[in-house]
Structures are given as structure tokens and as C-alpha cells.
């Protein structure tokens, strides 16, 4: 796990058998070579991507088994000039970076065999199977191209209702987005209640072979989340701050929804032990 503080310091904790961090259970400061401040950090399954403030420099560390660090052995840096990186994100086994010029780069092979199976006989696009940063062809300013942690691609186009997206959050197989008017939409896998939508059955069976059944392929609004000030997605569950209260929904087998039970929560519900907890706009993670 990684955190970046307000002062730009990097703190990490967790396992270190792949060099992710010191093997400790409390957050420890992690000094970086050269650069003194961290703008943003994002963690994949077993690697981290760090966006520093040194001319948009990106640092990566830990496992490179799936090319998720973005370079091949023997290559330590790219010879091509790139615009400064503004944002980074890590998936399970892939990573992305956006630049000041509005370009998106992706690297990491992730679940390329899954992609081959789903896209066959069409070839897997270069940006979904590259071990080095590869330009992602984003189609137009009104389209939102999202990659889940597992590498599924969701494309949300057709902005006919003028809903400009301001926030995008991704679980492993579902997405939550917020528009500038405060409306919240979810789509993707639904069988653990992770979409928080009404009229979702509690049937856990998920038709993997066709990706149908308990999954929603188009964004559907969740009115209970209107005006959410903070949203966070776990692998198959979510937290949000709505009207000063923390709500949770989704998979709850390990009590991660915080209601004290082990039952999946199909629609956003306030966490009982927190009352009127307001969001901290200055916190970063």
C-alpha cells in the first residue's frame, strides 16, 4: 500500500517479496532518488507507479513479470521526448499515464490471453499488450475510455445529455463515475451488489462465458449517490461520502462494507458506527 502526504512524501507498507516496500505493517517513509516530492501514487497487484514533480517524471517499482513496469531488460529510459505526466493509474498488471498534452499511454500485458480469447480472431490492440509505454488511441473528447483493474475496456460515448464526467473510479470489474452535476453512474459486474442499483437480484450466479447475467453494460444512475463528495472502489465493493455520511455497498464477505455483517450490500447504506463524518478535501491517497 502507498500514500502520498501533503508535503509530497511517499509512505509505504506491506509485503516486500517483490520489492514493493519494506516488509512492515505500519506506513514508513520511502525516500526516492533525486526527486523530493510525490504528486501521486497508484498501486497495482504487486507494483507501484509514482508520479513525481520532477518534470513529470514517473517512477515504477516491484514486479515486472507482466511488463507492468513499462520497460524491457536493458532499457532504462526512453529516448523519445514526452510531455510531462499529469496523472498515473495502476491496474492489476498494467498501468496508464496521462500527459499535459492530453495523451494517454499504457503498458503492461495484464491478462493478454484473456484479451486474445475475447477478441479472436481480431488481433489484440498494441496498447493492450505492450511491455513499454504505448500511445492509447482515445476516440474524441466526448468519449470516456476506462480500463478496469483486470484490463476490461469500457467505452462510454454519446454525450447527448451533456453529462461531463469529473470523476472515474474503478473496481476490478466495475466502474463508478460522477458527472459535474453530481449524478453518479455505475456499470460492469453486478453479482455482488457492487453497482448499488435498485432491482438487482441477489443471485450470485455470474455467466462468465458470455459476460451477461449479473452485469450491466451501460451506465445506470444510482440516485442514492447523487452529490457524493468522495467515492472509493475496492475490488468488488465501494465507499462514498454522501451528505456528510459514509455509505458502503457491494461484496462484504470480509466485512469490508463495515456494517458488521458478512452479507453483501446491494444498495448504498450508511455505515452505522460513523455519524456525520465529513470528507477531508485535503487528503490524498
Amino acid at each position, binding site marked *: 500500500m502507498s500514500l502520498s502526504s501533503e508535503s509530497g512524501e511517499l509512505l509505504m507498507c506491506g509485503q516486500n*517479496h*517483490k*520489492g514493493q516496500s519494506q516488509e512492515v505493517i505500519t506506513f514508513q517513509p520511502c525516500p526516492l*532518488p*533525486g526527486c523530493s516530492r510525490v504528486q501521486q501514487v497508484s498501486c497495482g*497487484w*504487486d507494483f507501484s507507479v509514482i508520479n513525481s514533480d520532477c518534470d*513529470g*517524471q*514517473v*517512477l*515504477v*517499482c*516491484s*514486479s*515486472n*513479470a*507482466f511488463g507492468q*513496469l*513499462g*520497460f524491457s531488460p536493458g532499457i*532504462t*529510459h*526512453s529516448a523519445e521526448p*514526452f510531455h510531462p*505526466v499529469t496523472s498515473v493509474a495502476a491496474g*492489476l498488471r498494467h498501468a496508464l*499515464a496521462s*500527459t499535459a498534452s492530453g495523451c494517454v*499511454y499504457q503498458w503492461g500485458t495484464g*491478462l493478454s*490471453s*484473456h484479451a486474445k*480469447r475475447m477478441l479472436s480472431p481480431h488481433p489484440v490492440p498494441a496498447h493492450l499488450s505492450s511491455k513499454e*509505454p504505448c500511445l492509447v488511441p482515445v476516440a474524441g473528447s466526448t468519449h470516456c475510455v476506462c480500463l478496469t483493474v483486470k484490463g476490461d475496456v469500457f467505452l462510454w460515448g454519446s454525450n447527448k445529455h451533456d453529462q461531463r464526467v469529473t470523476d472515474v473510479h474503478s473496481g*476490478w470489474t466495475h466502474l463508478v463515475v460522477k458527472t459535474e452535476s453530481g449524478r453518479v453512474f455505475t456499470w460492469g459486474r453486478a453479482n455482488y451488489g457492487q453497482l448499488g442499483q435498485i432491482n438487482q437480484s441477489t443471485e*450470485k*450466479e*455470474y455467466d*462468465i*462465458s458470455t459476460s451477461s447475467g449479473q452485469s450491466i453494460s451501460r451506465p445506470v444512475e444510482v440516485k442514492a449517490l447523487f452529490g457524493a463528495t468522495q467515492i472509493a472502489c*475496492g*475490488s*468488488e465493493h465501494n465507499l462514498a461520502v454522501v451528505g456528510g455520511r459514509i455509505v458502503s455497498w457491494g*461484496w462484504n*464477505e*470480509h466485512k469490508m462494507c463495515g456494517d458488521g455483517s458478512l452479507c453483501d450490500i446491494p444498495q448504498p447504506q450508511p455505515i452505522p458506527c460513523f455519524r456525520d463524518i465529513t470528507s477531508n478535501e485535503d487528503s490524498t491517497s
Partner: protein
Amino acid sequence: MTVFHDEVEIEDFEYDDETETYYFPCPCGDRFAITKEDLENGEEVATCPSCSLIVKVIYDKEQFMCGEVIEAPKTSENKLELAQNLL
């Protein structure tokens, strides 16, 4: 009736030489696991030691039963990689 959380190709698992086990991340934070021996016996269910989720392993059973080892990224190749000037 068995309810699988997902179906995962054997190529997407990471193989550990020491334990002779194939691993794949579980949403709970632990890993689904299935041993090479299980695969050679035709098993296709990888389980997570920390939760109820299970995944179906997609692989060529004939290839495993004849003793061939499927190439998958090995966890023993992990190393600390710290790179600068990536972009």
C-alpha cells in the same frame, strides 16, 4: 451447483517453482491457488485460502497429463526494479 467467481487461463497464473503451485490474485487480497499435481490429475478449480471464491482454470488437460509444464511468469524472477525517466 458450483458457482465460479471467474474463469482464468493458466497462462495468466504465476507459477512458483518451490511450491509447484500456480497463483492468481483474488479480489480479497489473497491468491487463488492450484498445484501442478492437481492440474496433472485433471482438476480445474483454483481455491482461495481466505475466502469462498473459486475460479475455473482454463488449460489443455492433455498437455498437463503428459508431463509438460505450461510456461507462466515465475514469481522467482521477481526483483526490485526502480527506473527513472520512464516518460
